[in-house]
């Protein structure tokens, strides 16, 4: 029989606080198969791992059970410790007695009893574990990046500079994301376009980057190192090779629609270029609004186009690309401002959201950077900013802090003051969160030098009187009612995951949290990886963050991908299905069950086979096998039944 060592971790008091580890050690010492048992304060620390390594030699162990935290955290840590001692890494089992025991129970006696059972199931499973060698598979050294905002751009450039090919997919006609819409960035006040456009041009020029703009990821199949992605490129109806960007088409286009780039604050035509610095620099026809799809109605742009670049009959194009890893950088949207009816958005044209105000401040915006309000073009002399609009309101809106609104509001107020010297900005806030490098100094400077007035409290109501917006609020520090006759109101909306990314994320089966943000493999130690191997996260798709954090995370994801691609081949988990040839009748039920096409019928032997490289180890084929010929390596029926027995017997 195997000689198994059981190592119980105290995890400080996280486990020891609710589980009597000494009693547990005593009880399990006599359990059949347990050759050695020990408890220690931090099993994952170097002394803890050394204890395991030394005991393996001293007590001639051939298997180890570590009773500690969830296997997602430290399974590989302890597997590596076994590797060092030349014991196969599949001779390790983790008994999860923290997340699924000590942390969720209060009663010491009951928690100890449950931990005892959990450890016994791990021992029983380990007894029948085989030593397995990872299956090696080829590695495609190309990367897919979904999303062409600052996160996607940074990651693409980093990986491309590292010498690997990148496929960058952006759903909009131009890359740039939300950052390209911003006026200036906190806390340095450098112009967003000035720091962004060179990067966009670099993406376009880089020999290792293949850009798919106006495109969507339809599906991704395969496993880490060997994915196949299907990309749909929506027709732009303007041939980028022929188009000279002469702009003869837009003046003749009769259709006028609100501009997305200016957040509806200006107009564009149905044939348009999103903004002058767009990459790729090509015009696009917006199918929803263009009349040209009915040739009788309109062909004005086509008539005006001298190089004959317009083709209304263009169809979507589909591409299949082979890739080894994926970075998901799908970004954010502002929390829908329509949800905040009490602030009068939509009813009063001078109530704006943060991005709209950003466009007014921007030199490329609808007012050319001059401060005019939308309703009558008047220069606003008093502006009220409302922070936490939609954020930190678990009952009605977003429960979380959106992290950037405090800072962008102070930036708005400051930039406004720079443009309207005799203007007065007021900011309603709950707390000021300025926890970034030079952020607090930025806030302090704005308060002392720019005369920005802060009220701690929320706004109850906004209504219009003559040409003024009357803002009713309360200052909770002085308990005084506040009434401001403002010319303009700016709502510092919180952020949420990008609306249009929802579909692609659910297609990829990536885990999201209750707010829709992507879940990282570990909140502290693996913040840029997904639990699904081969997928990496960057930017606001993972959680609210500002530009410096987004860029850092994108570079971190790129570094992780570069590390993966520096291998010659990929190792694939050997926890796959196997077939007992003697029992298999060749019925083929497993073949139709397998979602990966890993099951095939051997026409000569008349039995089912498993393609190890394609098998993902779900085990669906095992429970459908009528003759019990199929088994899952290291999770056989016998192993599971032995675990069931531990739990069900008295």
């Amino acid at each position, binding site marked *: 029989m195997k000689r198994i060592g059981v190592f119980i971790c105290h995890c400080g008091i996280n486990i020891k606080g609710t589980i009597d580890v000494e009693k547990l050690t005593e009880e399990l010492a006599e359990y059949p198969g347990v050759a050695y048992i020990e408890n220690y304060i931090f099993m994952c620390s170097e002394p803890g791992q050394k204890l395991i390594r030394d005991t393996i030699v001293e007590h001639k162990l051939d298997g180890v059970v570590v009773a500690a935290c969830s296997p997602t955290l430290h399974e590989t840590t302890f597997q590596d410790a076994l590797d060092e001692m030349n014991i196969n890494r599949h001779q390790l089992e983790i008994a999860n007695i923290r997340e699924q025991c000590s942390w969720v129970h209060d*009663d010491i006696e009951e928690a100890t009893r449950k931990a005892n059972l959990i450890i016994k199931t791990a021992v029983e499973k380990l007894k029948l574990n085989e030593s397995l060698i990872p299956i090696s598979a080829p590695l495609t050294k190309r990367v897919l990046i979904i999303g062409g905002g600052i996160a996607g751009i940074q990651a693409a450039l980093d990986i491309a500079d590292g010498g690997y090919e990148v496929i960058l997919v952006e759903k909009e006609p131009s890359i740039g994301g939300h950052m390209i819409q911003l006026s200036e960035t906190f806390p340095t006040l450098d112009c967003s376009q000035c720091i962004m456009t060179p990067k966009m041009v670099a993406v376009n020029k880089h020999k290792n980057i293949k850009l798919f703009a106006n495109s969507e990821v339809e599906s991704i199949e395969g496993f880490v190192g060997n994915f196949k992605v299907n990309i749909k490129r929506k027709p732009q109806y303007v041939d980028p090779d022929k188009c000279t960007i002469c702009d003869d088409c837009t003046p003749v286009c009769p259709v006028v629609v609100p501009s997305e780039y200016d957040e509806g604050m200006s107009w564009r035509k149905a044939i348009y270029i999103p903004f002058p610095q767009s990459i790729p620099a090509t015009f696009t026809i917006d199918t929803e609004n263009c009349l040209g799809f009915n040739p009788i109605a309109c062909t004005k742009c086509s008539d005006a186009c001298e190089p004959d670049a317009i083709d209304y009959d263009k169809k979507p194009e589909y591409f299949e690309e082979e890739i080894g890893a994926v970075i998901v950088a799908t970004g954010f949207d502002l929390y829908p401002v329509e949800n905040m009816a009490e602030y009068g958005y939509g009813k009063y044209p001078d109530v704006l959201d943060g991005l709209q105000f950003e466009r007014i401040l921007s030199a490329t915006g609808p007012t050319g950077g001059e401060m005019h309000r939308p309703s009558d073009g008047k220069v606003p002399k008093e502006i009220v900013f409302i922070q936490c609009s939609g954020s930190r309101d678990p009952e009605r809106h977003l429960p979380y802090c959106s992290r950037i609104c405090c800072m962008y509001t102070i930036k708005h107020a400051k930039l406004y003051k720079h443009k309207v010297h005799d203007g007065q900005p007021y900011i309603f806030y709950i707390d000021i969160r300025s926890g970034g490098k030079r952020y607090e100094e930025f806030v302090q400077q704005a308060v002392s030098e720019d005369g920005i007035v802060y009220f701690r409290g929320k706004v109850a109501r906004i209504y219009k009187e003559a040409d003024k917006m009357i803002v009713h609020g309360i200052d909770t520090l002085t308990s005084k009612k506040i009434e401001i006759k403002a010319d303009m109101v700016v709502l510092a909306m919180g952020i949420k995951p990008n609306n249009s990314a929802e579909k692609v994320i659910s297609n990829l089966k990536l885990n999201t949290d209750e707010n829709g943000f992507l879940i990282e493999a570990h909140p502290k130690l693996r913040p840029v990886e997904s639990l699904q191997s081969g997928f990496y996260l960057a930017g606001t798709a993972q959680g609210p963050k500002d530009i410096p954090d987004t860029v850092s995370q994108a570079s971190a994801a790129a570094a992780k991908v570069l590390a993966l691609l520096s291998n010659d081949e990929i190792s694939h988990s050997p926890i796959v299905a196997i077939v007992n040839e003697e029992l298999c009748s060749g019925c083929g039920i497993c073949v139709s069950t397998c979602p990966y096409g890993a099951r095939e019928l051997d026409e000569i032997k008349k039995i089912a086979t498993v393609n190890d490289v394609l098998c993902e180890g779900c085990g669906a084929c095992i429970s459908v096998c009528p003759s019990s010929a199929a088994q899952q390596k290291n999770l056989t029926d016998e192993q599971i039944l032995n675990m069931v027995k531990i739990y069900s017997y008295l």
Partner: protein
Amino acid sequence: MKEYKPKIVCFLCKWCTSAGADLAGTSRLKYPASILPIRVMCSSRIDPMFVVKAFLNGADGVFIGGCHPGDCHYHEGNYHTRRRFAMLTKVFDTLGLDSKRLKLSWISASEGTKFAKVSNEYTEKIKSYGENPSKWNVFL
């Protein structure tokens, strides 16, 4: 008299429900120690035989947790589970076992609160039924 503490064997899929149970732990939510977890790669790995054996061995309830329909990490594993569970309920009734003691629930990796809630409610339910009468009733 000592309070009756049921034994509930729980099969949790690695990607959703087990991760949800981990989140319940990280959030320090509380539920009874009757919940005894076995982690499998996918809920579709659960052979109905495991469930029957658990009952005959003396478990008071069996809980199966998987990803929400459409969210299965392996694309369609939980659809197999759903059909198999419907079938299993009928088999239980035919065999004279108590199908009310079976529970299938979809709990995602973000639903720590749901895991704790389902665990609490299900344990209460099993408690109200009392001990599994088919215990030791080995007829298969």
